[in-house]
């Protein structure tokens, strides 16, 4: 059970975070942008848990508590973000992120 290399956990978290950034920056659908943010939050949680396993004794619990708060923040973020998506797609009738560039002018 303890044979998992912490290096591999951090490697997986780094690659997952990069994939999340790639989804946010390259996809054009605004739902996909929100999902990329969720992917990045998951990668950070995995990194927290991986590092917390190397702390001695009860200190390892502190790193396992922080992802609980991150999950709650992610819930709030998804709630407000999806409400904003509903709000802005009502007028435009599209989910292409290029259609919401009015703030440029």
């Amino acid at each position: 059970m303890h044979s998992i290399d912490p290096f591999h956990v951090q490697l997986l978290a780094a690659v997952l975070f990069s994939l999340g950034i790639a989804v946010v920056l390259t996809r054009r659908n605004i739902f996909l942008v929100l999902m990329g943010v969720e992917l990045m939050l998951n990668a950070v949680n995995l990194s927290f848990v991986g590092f917390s396993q190397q702390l001695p004794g009860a200190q390892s619990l502190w790193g396992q508590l922080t992802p609980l708060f991150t999950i709650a923040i992610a819930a709030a973020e998804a709630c407000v973000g999806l409400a904003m998506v509903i709000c802005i797609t009502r007028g435009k009738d599209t989910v292409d992120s290029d259609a919401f560039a009015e703030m440029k002018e």
Partner: protein
Amino acid sequence: MFHSLDQLLGSAYFALFALATLLCAGGVLLSKHPINAAVYLIGVMLSLSGIYVLLGSPFLGVIQVLVYAGAIMMLVVFVIMVLNQARDHRVPRFDGFSIVGAILPLAIAVMAVRTLAFTEASTIDPAKVRGEIGPIAYTMFDLTPAGPGYYLLFELIGVLLLIAVVAAVMLAKRHLDSPPVHEAAGEDGHAQH
């Protein structure tokens, strides 16, 4: 012998879950329709909860399945279905700017892998506390002055979630003084045809 078999199975399960995580994350990046991406994202979250259990924090794995794969992704899929009128998939997946946008993730991946490759090898502490619900609860609600004070953060998260719910209702409501019900019903009936 059984000890070594146990160790072998641990890393084999980790490799399995890591492969599933990466495949599903690639599916999120490449999927055509947002519903497909949402299902792939649920796959990422379920695989990650398996990894959490393997790493010795089962409570976090349970919360990951309940809150993330259950509640948050349910909300995402629900909103996709509310807004989806067979036009989501007409949004092109990538455009010319996507090539520029792909540079940063590649750079971050290379930097992270290089940094990790030069750190010295470390092992998981075998004497660590397993993150069952009991130790987690005793640490989070440790009310002694010398404790870490996580209960204050817990209260703040409650206030934050309340604010988020109120903000979502304010944003998604059509007008603050909504028209009467029969008008809205007629509008919906018209939209269905």
